[in-house]
């Protein structure tokens, strides 16, 4: 029974990495950089925009950045768990979108505006 013969693929998979000769490290580094940049963009947008819908869109952007970082670190550690956690991120993002958008429609009907300043009496000062 020990005479099993190994099967080897003759042709290596033709991936973009092979075509362009760049390394995984470059992809991982770029993905991490983009996740930092996208998160910062989402943060700036969340803090500076007044439109409630855009503010929630910016939180989606931050989710996106977190997912990118998860997948990049999963690649670094050769662990699929990074990708599994992106599934959970997607779930939370979908649930959040459903609830937040329902709330936004509710708030819009109360004040007839999407301006978050319309609710600024919630502030302390």
């Amino acid at each position: 029974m020990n005479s099993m013969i190994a099967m080897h693929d003759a042709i290596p998979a033709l991936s973009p990495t092979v075509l362009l000769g760049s390394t995984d490290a470059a992809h991982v580094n770029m993905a991490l950089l983009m996740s930092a940049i996208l998160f910062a963009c989402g943060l700036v947008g969340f803090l500076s925009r007044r439109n409630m819908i855009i503010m929630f869109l910016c939180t989606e952007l931050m989710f996106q950045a977190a997912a990118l970082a998860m997948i990049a670190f999963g690649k670094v550690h050769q662990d699929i768990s990074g990708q599994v956690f992106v599934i959970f991120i997607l779930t939370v993002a979908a649930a959040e979108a459903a609830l937040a958008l329902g709330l936004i429609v509710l708030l819009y009907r109360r004040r007839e505006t999407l301006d978050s300043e319309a609710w600024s009496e919630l502030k302390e000062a």
Partner: protein
Amino acid sequence: MRRSGAPENIREHGMDRLFLNQLPPVPDLLSALWPAASSLLAESASTAGPVSPALVLTIASAISAIGLALLLRPGPRGVRLAGTVGGLAGFSILVVEVLKRAGEGDGGVPPVFPVVFGAIALFGAVRMITHARPVFAALYFILVVIATAAMFLLLGAEFMAFALIIVYAGAILITYMFVLMLAQQSPSGEQGAAWYDRVPREAGSAVIIGFVMLASLSEAYFSQGSQRFRDDIAARAEEEGALAAWRRLDAMPKLMLETAQAAANQAWRSAPEAERSAEKPAIASLVRDARGSSLRSERSGLEDGISVEVQFADGSMGLVLLPDSMRPDNSRQIGVDLVSRYPAGLEIAGVVLLMALFGAVILARKQIELGEDERRELAGMRRLTVDGEPGGAGGAR
């Protein structure tokens, strides 16, 4: 130049092909340009004195933050152009710095795809947070999603890339579009956008916070040790990736048994007629070692590769070499990992979605039922349609 050395008849028929042949291929062109650009950058850095990599990252983040601050406020064209140039300059310095840490730039070909998709994602994100019209902001977010999905593909996460496009671009963004239509404000002022979409709120402090975020994140990622992730990735070579993939499958005994049987069948079929046994080997069970693993990655006497230890139906033990072509692919690994390692998370995700469904239904329902009478009642006015039961406690609703 185009016809140099080409015989007359080839020039007639193969003009296009000849021309293409004489163009240097794109990667060659890039590899020719890349060292020049990076040496230019290194030179400028060396003439400015020794600059610590952390400082370079911080300065680049500051430049791009200033560019973003210029873009955020509604301003004349010149200011916007200056903001764009500043943001792009900061971004390119960051990219060059980061790629240097990946070991690119010393003669190698620069990675084109991640940089291109990164630039697309950056463009989409910046337009999204600066565009005055919410619908366009949502559309630019779809651009970001697609660019991110492309980066997922480059990182080998095929399933998540397509799931991202389906869930985000297909479902969530459509919901946003519907809400934008439901909560449509009447166009007022110039450009047809509401004032609160045109004027940012405290853009300066927002950009400062974003800059702190970007600078600290990029330093945490890239300043400790110049080639941190490159070494990590080199240490975990392809071999370990394959082993990890098989280990996922090994967590599902039945699937592993089926795969081992298939591998054994394949090896039996491809063996020469004289050497193989009369009938296909039948695998009875997997043989687990002390750690509960049936995989053997060390040299097993067959050939280098990952094999699985099994007990055959006739009682003999043996190793079956697992061929690369049978290695579980990305989506299979995710599925197996999801049910074998994170079953509780999977259940909770289902509960979260169900609760979100209930929540959305309840939110919508409450709004519909808040009719004229309830509003009058809340305002302390008389109900319009009461007869007999003024403000019935709960039952009326």
